[in-house]
């Protein structure tokens, strides 16, 4: 018998319920209203008073309404068919909802329970298995979707029976497992898991040691993201957070991409719905949508489900990681989730921390980021979740609680600068402020140098240094005037500009320039380093600016042409001519 209660108070979507019986923190309950049931989550228990946050509008709700507790926390349904879906923050399949407008209290099945999947067993009777162990495999798009021992199973189990190769629906029994007490457990293709609990079906989480290729030069060349690493992108509005995340979702070398659209614009999600089914996945030649799952809780959708949306996305990512896959998880924007926590904490009249955010915000953020990572599974295979979130700091000021807490939790910092965005230097990642801690990991350095040539990291630091020196002399020139500084200063300044325009900047809307693989990036980096190391002859500072503009313009023509095409080679030759004009031995 489930616990029953009654509504005794309503303040916006905070609803107070009274009950005499057993309730648990974070338990889900349903509030009866007219002919619907509104889903809510327990967030505080004070004696018989249970505080719940309702995931829907509470308009018209009355005191005295009946409440039924579900006996479990907020959980997601895990099984084949999650890919290519568009879910809301609570994992309702948005495509199954009826009508143009969202209806309150309409909850839909996240999976297709009648669809048949081709099952192939991976164990035999008598085998010993533990939670997360692979029992069999079904095809989901091109991925071998593993049917696993449910993550909640504790201890060792013996396979009593395993279903033969064939075609089955997801709720059929695929295996019967026997625990050490001799009790039998049926396992289907589907399991449920509470979103706030990390899935730990792996042996070990080493330090990340591989680089995740993204095709974005400011990432790969200048601030590489590790496979299984964490990073965040803070920036004022309009500085390019979403464009950058979309670029990552299209191009990154991941098996699958999970996007949590958290409290941002609906049209940005529509862009993905519209474009991804048409765009090719450069790795498989299939459509991008086939490797993508979207969790949409846009800014007009219920605020309380904002928090749920990022956890739902993370849990789905963990599920696929346990199958040995390389998952890229993106959340735009984690600030909206923090704000949702703030709204609720204020309504409950809790003692506020800095800027009114809950006191435990830093812990919440750091726990979340720590769920990412590269793992060795129990069967020796590997899987990873690379997590990149955006942060939307109030007033663009990075000294605010969400940015500061995230900076402590994430290893890469991609700071978007208003000034760069204003001058259309996209992506507007500040080349000086931003960093990737991974670039200091010996195992990452080794990996990069092995992949991109032994001078790779040395060259990377060389161009980073050129950017820094360029910025320094620029300030000098501004103070002392063009003719108040030595000629060299102008050359140093422009050499940094070459790095900025040719490597940092990248046109996300140009078919060619938007994606640059490591092979191409290596060519460009070596080429630019060579140019930077050369000396040039000028008679006056007035010659420096037009010369380098010409040089940069030529480089840009190269960036716009297909790598190693005729056009590219032609541009390369012209570049060489320009270099020789002023190069001195």
């Amino acid at each position: 018998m489930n616990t029953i209660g009654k509504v005794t108070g309503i303040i916006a979507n905070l609803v107070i319920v009274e009950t005499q019986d057993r309730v648990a923190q974070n338990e889900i309950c349903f509030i009866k209203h007219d002919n619907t049931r509104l889903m809510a989550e327990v967030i505080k228990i004070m004696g018989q008073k249970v505080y719940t946050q309702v995931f829907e509008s509470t308009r018209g709700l009355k005191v005295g309404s009946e409440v039924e507790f579900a006996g479990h926390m907020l959980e997601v349904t895990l099984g084949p068919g999650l890919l290519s879906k568009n879910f809301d923050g609570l994992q309702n399949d948005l495509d199954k909802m009826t009508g143009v407008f969202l209806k309150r209290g309409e909850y839909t099945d996240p999976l297709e329970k009648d669809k048949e999947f081709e099952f192939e067993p991976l164990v035999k009777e008598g085998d010993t298995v533990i939670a997360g162990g692979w029992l069999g495999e079904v095809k989901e798009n091109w991925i071998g979707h593993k049917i696993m021992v449910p993550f909640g199973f504790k201890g060792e189990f013996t396979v009593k029976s395993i279903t033969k190769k064939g075609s089955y629906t997801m709720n059929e029994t695929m295996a019967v497992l026997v625990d050490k007490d001799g009790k039998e457990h049926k396992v289907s293709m589907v399991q449920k898991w509470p979103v706030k609990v990390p899935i730990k079906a792996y042996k070990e989480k080493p330090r990340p040691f591989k680089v995740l290729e993204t095709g974005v030069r400011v990432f790969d060349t200048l601030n590489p993201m590790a496979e299984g690493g964490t990073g965040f992108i803070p920036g004022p509005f309009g500085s390019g957070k979403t464009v950058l995340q979309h670029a990552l979702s299209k191009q990154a070398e991941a098996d699958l991409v999970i996007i949590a659209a958290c409290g941002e614009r609906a049209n940005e999600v529509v862009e993905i719905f519209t474009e991804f089914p048409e765009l090719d996945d450069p790795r498989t030649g299939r459509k991008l949508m086939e490797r993508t799952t979207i969790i949409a809780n846009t800014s007009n959708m219920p605020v309380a489900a904002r928090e749920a949306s990022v956890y739902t996305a993370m849990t789905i990512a963990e599920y696929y990681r346990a199958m040995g896959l390389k998952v890229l998880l993106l959340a735009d924007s984690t600030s909206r989730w923090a704000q949702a926590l703030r709204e609720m904490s204020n309504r409950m009249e809790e003692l506020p921390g800095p800027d009114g955010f809950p006191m435990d915000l830093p812990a919440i953020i750091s726990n979340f980021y720590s769920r990412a990572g590269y793992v060795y599974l129990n069967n020796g295979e590997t899987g990873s979740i690379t997590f990149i979130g955006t942060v939307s700091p109030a007033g663009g000021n990075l000294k605010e609680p969400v940015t500061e807490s995230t900076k402590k939790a994430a290893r890469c910092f991609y700071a978007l600068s208003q000034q760069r965005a204003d001058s259309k230097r996209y992506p507007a990642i500040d080349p000086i402020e931003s960093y990737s801690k991974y670039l200091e990991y010996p195992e990452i350095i080794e990996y990069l140098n092995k992949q991109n040539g032994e001078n790779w990291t040395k060259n990377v630091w060389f161009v980073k240094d050129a950017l820094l020196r360029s910025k320094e002399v620029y300030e000098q020139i501004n103070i002392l005037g063009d003719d108040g500084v030595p000629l060299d200063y102008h050359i140093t300044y422009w050499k940094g500009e070459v790095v900025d325009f040719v490597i940092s900047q990248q046109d996300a809307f140009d078919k060619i320039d938007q994606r640059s693989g490591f092979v191409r990036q290596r060519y460009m980096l070596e080429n630019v380093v060579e140019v930077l190391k050369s000396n040039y002859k000028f008679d006056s500072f007035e010659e420096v600016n037009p010369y380098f503009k010409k040089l940069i313009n030529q480089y840009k023509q190269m960036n716009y042409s297909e790598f190693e095409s005729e056009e590219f080679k032609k541009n390369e030759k012209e570049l060489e001519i320009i270099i020789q004009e002023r190069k001195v031995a």
Partner: protein
Amino acid sequence: MEKDTKAFQRIYTKLFQLTKATVSLQASGIGNEELAIVDGRLAQVVKIMGDIVTLQVFAGTEGIANDAEVIFTGKAPTLKVGEDLAGRFFNAYGEPIEGGEIMGEEREIGGPSVNPVRRMQPSEFIATGIAGIDLNNALVTGQKIPFFADPDQPYNQVMANVALRAQADKIILGGVGLTNDDYLYFKRVFDDAGALDRIVGFINTTENPPVERLLVPDMALSAAEYFAAEKGQKVLVLLTDLTLYADALSIVSNRMDQIPSKDSMPGSLYSDLARLYEKAVQFPDGGSITIIAVTTLSSGDITHAIPDNTGYITEGQLFLRKDSDIGKVIVDPFRSLSRLKQLVIGKRTREDHPQVMNAAVRLYADAANAKTKLENGFDLTDYDERTLDFARAYSEKLLAIDVNIEVEAMLDTAYELFGKHFSPVEVGLKQEFVEKYWKKK
């Protein structure tokens, strides 16, 4: 019909708590967000604790006694929608200002959101003739975008121009704390243009109680949803000035003792504004809601919580400022942005549009640097001088809000200015465009 509902209305006469904006009383069977009439004034349920109901009185509680009559209506705020709305002006409660009745179906305002998978990606270019908008910040149907402007800028005039040129089936004006003069201005301009039958107005002027304003955007957007979702029309919603809307929100939250966040604004400001702006939509069958709003700034400060939260919600912003070099108001190319422009520029407009736009803005940025140099007392190079000349002409011929030309003409004007002041290498356009368009001038 009227009588029937009356029969179910519950009447109370014992208020036990009054604040400046709220009254509390003992009552039962009341729904959250339900409307009530308190001493003849409209009020809405904002909190229920056991049998204690707290109501927010839109017009304020001045003069209300603790034995005032409270009548609950049993429903959330509504608007009667129908073709009858067209050509008329209403107050914040959806009652015709000039009196009379409205024939139509009653709808709750502030209704549910469109399922994101049922939306279409906006793709229809809105030509306004203003190059600061069409060339640099092209607008698209289904977009939501505010003007960011100091209170002394002519934003209402620009907005009225844009509305009339936008070829919308309906223009819905939501006046939020509009001065009476501006209200009459809008009426006159629409009348002069012979457009009154396409207009619907929901007006709260500075003479009305500030908290009433909170109803206006929802009224306007509910009317918009009727025309766009049900009649498949292209609807343009003008909301001016949403800074005053946010101010009204802060008055209410303040009086309800909520913890204020940045700039004394309620912590829910982002969600409150997003709820409105996200009503902008392109429906698959051609209907659309485009929202053009106004956010007034205090001395250009966009880091204040109101413009800041707005910027995070809207699809760009159009920043108006006076250019003292030419003595005209311009659409500032640095601080303005249309996030949906890439859906139409170079696709619905000429192929070189994106490149020309970026090149011109870059040169304008170079001019800004040159200007700083000049102010710091340094000598200018020949290039610096040329950028300054270019900037002046660019401002005058393209950025000023009094420009009214076609996009092709804007692009040609840009080439004309490039050619006059620079070499192709300095402008840095793709070679194919230089060959195709540069010589043509």
